[in-house]
Structures are given as structure tokens and as C-alpha cells.
């Protein structure tokens, strides 16, 4: 693969080489003819060589100009200016040299005149092709598909004209010459209508462009005249072989370059007065972009307001402006929420002063009083102030809530118009979007943090439930608990009061979620402090009720069952505080039933009367007996039909698994529960605790 650089160098080298060959061959032919000799090469050779020369130049400029993506219009124009300047200076130097020689024979020698002509032709061709390439870049700036195809046709037609000159060198004046030339000239004129690039020049650049194009046109005229003079003066005596007048390509280029230069010149001239408007529009777009990008860069709300203020003030050329940010959150300890101001060429004192005098009514959180445009939340008013004569204001709304306002001031009356109002509105809207995005982002971060906190709460809570249940060799015990939310209100625990006495507790806080979880942890504290005194179950409930009465919410209560297993006496003593009745299996009688004892939930009666409503029961146990404790999350679990799992189903499952180990029974029970409810998560916290005596 050839790189652009190699192609450029190669084509330049070829161009020079071909020109030298051209000159040599043409001079040789003329010399031979002048001396009546046969040159041995046809007159067609220089013609072909000239066309090849044009082709190499075409290639050279094609690859050397404007391959950089971000070319600058002025750089391009500068380039043709320099090329033209060098070419003209060389040509003038040659002319001067001729002048110095005076009327010597050399000057009038046909060969010298021909050589001079060839030099000028080469220089003109170079200038033409460099300019042609630059024009091409300018025309194809912001090209459409149609334009590109028209251009391609034009360029191929030009190349075809090169071939035409080579193939039909002897009957150039006849046949297709003129129609072809006219078609090319018309196409060139058609394409010359494309000058989108002019719009992107600022005022100074436009002036520079005018100068450069004028100079280019001057060069072009100069070369046209020089060449024309050369070929006409002595046309009778001399017979230039590479006569440019018969080369469609060169003629078409001349016309195209001239027409486009002229058009550009006129268009730039006509655009001069409006360029300041265009520059302003461009500045607006840039400001707008800054606002939209403010969300991506790590900026905060205040900075967005700042950008809004600055952009708005500079766009409408306001003499002063401010953004008022309403303080919507009332912090405790602060009497009235105070707005904060971001100002531009105005002091806060002056702002407050203005707001007082003008009916900018802030009491209803709206800056705009009677004249308020309800639809757009904006206004343009006259001011009767020493410094400012007109004002324009916009409310900044986020999700239909006013969060602030921007006020722009001018020292002339009627300083603001509809046009400005529309621009500033788009700014305000964009700023609102940016700020809303900030807020959403912050909310999302907060949510993330809460989720993290809840995860921690879950971890802490799960450590409140014992991993290992304290017990002696007299029985096996297993427990399982699952919360509906991250944290739950179910509780179970065991404690070995002595080697032969074990306390077992199961509890359920009313409700679920965080508040239930806190009360569950209180229950654990109460259990661990009371159990040390080895109370009877009735005493335990009474003391727990008394403790909880002081801290439970008015509508909250805790249900619990408390057991003390005495493995010496093979006896259970137990009490129930509103908790689900215990399911008990007696192996000896093969009886499975709910223990029916009276009891009242903890926290319901918050006085001394509580003792009356609970009782301590005792029961002997034997090996093979089962105690099944659970919370209402199991019995009240519902299926899709709204039916509850219920006490009967629970009893049935236990009765089907009487010989199973406690763990197997637990697994069966949980599986049955999930199968029944038909969902992945049970709606309430649920817990089971199963004891089997050995």
C-alpha cells in the first residue's frame, strides 16, 4: 500500500519530469521543423505529455490538500494564495528577464518564446489545479448524496476531456469540442452554487477570505492574459503545439475557478452584515451544549444555575441578572426558608431592593404576580428603576414544582423581545432537566445506601437468632425462621438454666419489617435478663409484660410461649401469652393435639391485672413425645384461592411424620407450606421450633 505521503511525492516528481519531457519534446519538434528536419516524433507527443502533466498535477493536489479531517477554510484559501503568488512571481521574473534582454535575437527566437510559454503554462496549470482541489473541498463541505454524485460526474467529465484532447488532437475545432466545453462550464456553474462553508466564517474570517479570493482572481486573470498574449502574438510564425486554447480541460478549469471565485466573493460580501447574527446563534448553541453537558461532568446544582445565568445573560446581553433558588426544605431550627441568590453584575442588596419595589411577590413562592404567563411561567415587564428599565423573568420548574427563577435586567426600556424569551426558555428547560437528573441520581444513591443499611440490619438481626440451640441430652431441638422482609419480628431462643433445666421461648411481634425487628431484639434482651432468675413461666410472662408495657407502641403487642423443660423430673412447665397454641404429640397415647391453655398477649394489658390472664401449666413428658412450636406466619399463610394453611393442615403434616427426626419433620413442614402457598416467598415472617424427647 502506498501512503499518501509517497503518492504526493511521487506525483510531484512525475509532474516535474513530465513537464521537462514536454518542454524537451516540444522544443525538439519546433527546432527540427524550423530547420526542415524530421523530428522523428509526432506532434501528438507533447500534447499527450501535457495532458499527462495535468493528470499528475491533479493527483498531486488531490492527495496533498485537505486530507486532514478538520481543515480550516482560511488555511485552504491561504494555500491557493501562496501557490498563486509563487507562480506569478516566477512568471513576472521571467518577464523581467526578457525585458532585461531587450530586443536581442534570443528574445525573438521562436524556441525561446515557446519555452517561455511552456513555463507560464506549467505555472498556470499548477495554480489552476491547486485552486480546483481547494474549490472541491469547499463545495463538498457538508455534502449531500446528490451533490456528491453531481460532483463525481463533473470530475469524471473533466478527466474524460483530458482523454478527448489526447484522442482527437487533430480535429479539435470540430465535432464535440464546443458542446463538451459548454456542458462542463454549465456544470461548473451549477456546482458553484454550493458554498455552505461561507456561513461558518466569522466576521474577520470573511474579510480575510474576500481578500484572498480577490488575489486569486487577480492571479487567474494575469495568467489568462499572459498565456493568451503568448499564443496570439506570434501565432502566425509560431505553432505552439500545447496550445491551451484547444484543451477543454484547461478552459473548463479556468471558467469553473473564475465562476466559483466570483460567486464566493459575492456571497461572502452579502453575508457580511449578517455574520454577527450567525455568530450569536453559534454562541447560543455552544451555551446550550454546556448546559446539557453539565450533567455528565461532575458538577453540582449550583454550577448548573451558574452556567444558566452566565449563558442567559451573555446571550441576551443583559446588564444584570440573578438566579433565585427557593429553599424548599424547611430545616428544623430555621424559622423561614430563605432563598439563595446567584447574581451577575448585581449585589444581593440590590436584588432584594428590586424585589421589594416591583411586585415580584415571593410569598406564594412565585416571583411573578399579576402579569404572569401561566403557561410558560415567564414574564417581560417594564421597570421604573434608576438603573434598570426592563426585566425578563422565568420560573425554573422541576416536575411542576417551582424550584427557582431567573431574572434578567436591562438598562433600556423594551430591552427584551419574544425571540430572546424563546431562547432563554430553552436554556431554562435544559437547566431544569440537568437539575432533575442530579436529583434523581442523588435519590438513587440514597436508595442504594438504604439498601445497604437494610442489609446490615438483616445481618445484625440474623445474629440475634441463635445458631446453636442450647439443650441437654434429654431432647433434640431444631428451629427455622424466615422473614417476609429483610428483617422480621419472629423470635426463638433457648437457655440452659442448669444442667437439667432448659428454658425455650418462641415469640412473634405484631406486624413485620423494621419496627417488628426492633421489638424482637428487645424481646431477646428481656428473655436473657429474666431467664437468669429462673422464673416460672407465668412469672416470666408477667415480668416481660411489665417490661414491654413501657416500650411497645400503642397498637403493638408480642405473643410468646415459654417453656421450662426439667429433664430430672421429666416435666414441662409452660405458659402462653397469646401465642399460637402448641402442638403436642404424646407417644404413649398416640395423641396429637393442640394444648389448650388460657393466655393474653404481651403489651395488651399494660397494668398489674395481667397476672389474672395467664397461668402456668405443667405436663409430664416421655421419650418419643414431640413439641411443635410455630408462629402464625405458618397457619395464616394463604394460597392463591385465599385459603389459609390452617391448624388442621399443620396437624396433618405432623401426624404423617411422627417417626421422623425433628429435622426431617421440619423440612417436610416447610416444603408443604411452600407447596401450599404456591409462591416463592411467604407473605409473613414464619418460624418453627420442634423438640423431640429422647
Amino acid at each position, binding site marked *: 500500500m502506498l501512503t499518501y505521503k509517497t503518492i504526493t511525492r511521487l506525483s510531484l516528481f512525475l509532474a516535474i519530469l513530465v513537464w521537462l519531457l514536454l518542454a524537451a519534446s516540444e522544443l525538439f519538434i519546433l527546432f527540427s521543423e524550423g530547420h526542415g528536419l524530421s523530428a522523428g516524433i509526432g506532434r501528438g507527443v507533447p500534447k499527450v505529455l501535457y495532458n499527462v502533466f495535468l493528470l499528475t498535477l491533479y493527483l498531486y493536489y488531490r492527495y496533498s490538500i485537505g486530507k486532514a479531517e478538520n481543515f480550516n477554510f482560511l488555511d485552504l484559501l491561504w494555500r491557493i494564495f501562496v501557490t498563486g503568488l509563487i507562480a506569478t512571481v516566477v512568471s513576472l521574473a521571467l518577464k523581467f528577464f526578457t525585458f532585461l534582454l531587450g530586443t536581442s535575437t534570443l528574445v525573438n527566437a521562436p524556441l525561446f518564446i515557446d519555452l517561455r510559454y511552456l513555463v507560464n503554462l506549467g505555472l498556470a496549470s499548477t495554480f489552476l489545479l491547486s485552486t480546483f482541489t481547494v474549490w472541491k473541498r469547499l463545495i463538498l463541505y457538508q455534502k449531500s448524496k446528490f451533490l456528491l454524485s453531481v460532483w463525481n460526474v463533473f470530475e469524471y467529465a473533466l478527466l474524460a476531456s483530458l482523454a478527448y484532447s489526447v484522442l482527437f488532437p487533430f480535429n479539435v475545432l470540430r465535432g464535440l469540442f464546443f458542446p463538451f466545453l459548454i456542458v462542463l462550464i454549465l456544470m461548473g456553474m451549477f456546482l458553484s452554487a454550493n458554498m455552505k462553508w461561507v456561513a461558518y466564517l466569522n466576521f474577520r474570517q470573511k474579510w480575510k477570505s474576500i481578500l484572498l479570493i480577490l488575489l486569486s482572481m487577480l492571479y487567474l486573470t494575469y495568467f489568462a492574459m499572459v498565456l493568451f498574449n503568448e499564443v496570439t502574438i506570434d501565432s502566425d510564425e509560431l505553432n505552439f503545439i500545447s496550445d491551451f486554447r484547444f484543451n477543454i480541460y484547461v478552459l473548463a478549469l479556468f471558467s469553473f475557478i473564475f465562476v466559483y471565485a466570483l460567486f464566493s466573493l459575492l456571497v461572502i460580501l452579502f453575508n457580511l452584515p449578517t455574520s454577527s447574527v450567525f455568530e450569536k446563534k453559534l454562541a447560543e448553541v455552544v451555551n446550550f451544549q454546556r448546559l446539557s453537558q453539565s450533567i455528565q461532568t461532575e458538577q453540582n446544582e449550583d454550577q448548573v444555575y451558574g452556567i444558566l445565568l452566565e449563558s442567559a445573560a451573555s446571550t441576551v446581553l443583559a446588564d444584570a441578572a440573578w438566579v433565585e433558588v427557593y429553599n424548599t426544605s424547611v430545616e428544623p431550627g430555621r424559622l423561614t426558608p430563605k432563598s439563595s441568590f446567584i447574581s451577575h453584575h448585581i449585589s444581593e442588596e440590590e436584588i432584594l431592593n428590586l424585589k421589594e419595589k416591583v411586585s415580584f411577590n415571593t410569598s406564594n413562592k412565585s416571583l411573578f404576580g399579576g402579569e404572569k404567563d401561566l403557561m410558560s411561567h415567564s414574564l417581560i415587564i417594564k421597570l421604573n428603576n434608576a438603573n434598570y428599565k426592563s426585566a425578563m423573568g422565568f420560573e425554573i420548574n422541576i416536575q411542576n414544582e417551582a424550584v427557582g427563577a431567573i431574572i434578567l435586567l436591562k438598562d433600556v426600556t423594551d430591552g427584551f423581545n419574544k425571540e430572546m424569551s424563546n431562547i432563554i426558555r430553552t436554556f431554562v428547560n435544559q437547566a431544569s432537566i440537568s437539575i432533575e437528573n442530579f436529583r434523581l441520581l442523588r435519590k438513587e444513591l440514597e436508595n442504594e445506601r438504604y439498601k445497604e443499611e437494610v442489609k446490615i440490619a438483616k445481618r445484625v438481626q440474623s445474629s440475634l437468632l441463635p445458631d446453636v440451640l442450647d439443650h441437654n441430652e434429654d431432647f433434640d431441638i431444631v428451629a427455622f425462621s424466615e422473614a417476609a422482609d429483610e428483617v422480621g419480628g419472629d423470635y426463638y431462643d433457648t437457655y440452659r438454666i442448669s444442667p437439667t433445666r432448659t428454658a425455650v421461648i418462641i415469640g412473634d411481634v405484631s406486624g413485620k419489617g423494621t419496627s417488628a425487628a426492633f421489638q424482637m431484639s428487645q424481646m431477646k434482651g428481656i428473655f436473657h435478663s429474666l431467664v437468669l432468675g429462673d422464673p416460672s413461666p407465668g412469672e416470666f410472662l408477667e415480668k416481660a409484660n411489665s417490661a414491654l408495657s413501657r416500650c411497645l407502641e*400503642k397498637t403493638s403487642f408480642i405473643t410468646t410461649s415459654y417453656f421450662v423443660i426439667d429433664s430430672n423430673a421429666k416435666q414441662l412447665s409452660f405458659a402462653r401469652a397469646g401465642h399460637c397454641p402448641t402442638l403436642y404429640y404424646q407417644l404413649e397415647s398416640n395423641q396429637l393435639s393442640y394444648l389448650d391453655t388460657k393466655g393474653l*398477649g404481651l403489651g395488651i394489658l399494660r397494668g398489674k391485672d395481667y397476672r389474672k390472664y395467664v397461668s402456668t401449666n405443667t405436663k409430664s413428658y416421655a421419650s418419643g413425645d414431640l413439641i411443635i412450636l410455630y408462629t402464625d406466619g405458618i397457619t395464616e399463610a394463604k394460597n392463591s384461592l385465599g385459603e389459609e394453611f390452617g391448624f388442621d393442615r399443620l396437624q396433618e403434616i405432623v401426624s404423617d411424620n411422627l417417626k421422623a427426626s425433628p429435622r426431617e419433620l421440619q423440612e417436610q413442614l416447610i416444603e408443604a407450606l411452600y407447596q401450599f402457598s404456591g409462591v416463592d416467598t411467604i407473605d409473613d415472617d414464619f418460624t418453627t421450633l420442634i423438640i423431640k424427647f429422647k
Partner: protein
Amino acid sequence: MIEIKTIPEGDISTIKIVGDVDASSSIQLDNEIQKVTEQKATKILFDCEELNYISSAGLGVFMSYIQYFEENDIKTGLFGLTDKVQNVFQILGLDQLLYIGTTKEEAKSHIDEQL
């Protein structure tokens, strides 16, 4: 999913509860009882014939008024509970603190007896 309305009949206000009393609808029940007590009612009956389900939050509402009823000498009674709902009251032990009758007449006569 809940409908609560109070029907005044002489000196007795009957609060009729229809549907499910769960965590969210228990607030409505609370508001209704609050309203009735603010009207200085001295006899309140709860018609639970169409009370389908009551959660612990609903029980919490009843529970929170027990002491208030006692202190302000307001006579109360529930009637027409389904077996399931009655069982819930019983397990928690609220049947020891609140009168639960089968029919409205029974509940009414219970209230009158206490006077």
C-alpha cells in the same frame, strides 16, 4: 377491601366492619373508633358478621382501645364473628378482655346488664 360504617341506634353505636382488616385497612378502623368515641358514645357494638379476616395490626387497634374503654366507662361488645376470626381473638386472649357474643341481641343485652 374494607368497608366500615357506624349505625347509631338510640344510645348504641354499631360499627359494622365488612371485609379484611389488614395492616393498611386497620388505619380506617382506628379512625372510625376514634370518631365514634369523640362523639361521646357510651355503648359501642362491633358488627363482625361480614368481617372476613383480621390481622395482628387489626387486633392491635382493638387492643389499643381496651384500656380507654375501661377508663371512660364505655361499654362494648362484638358479635357475629366467624369461627376463624373468633379463634384469632381467642388465641391472643382478647376474648378475656372484650365481650364476644353470637348475635346482636345477645351483645346488646350484655351491655345493658352491665349498667
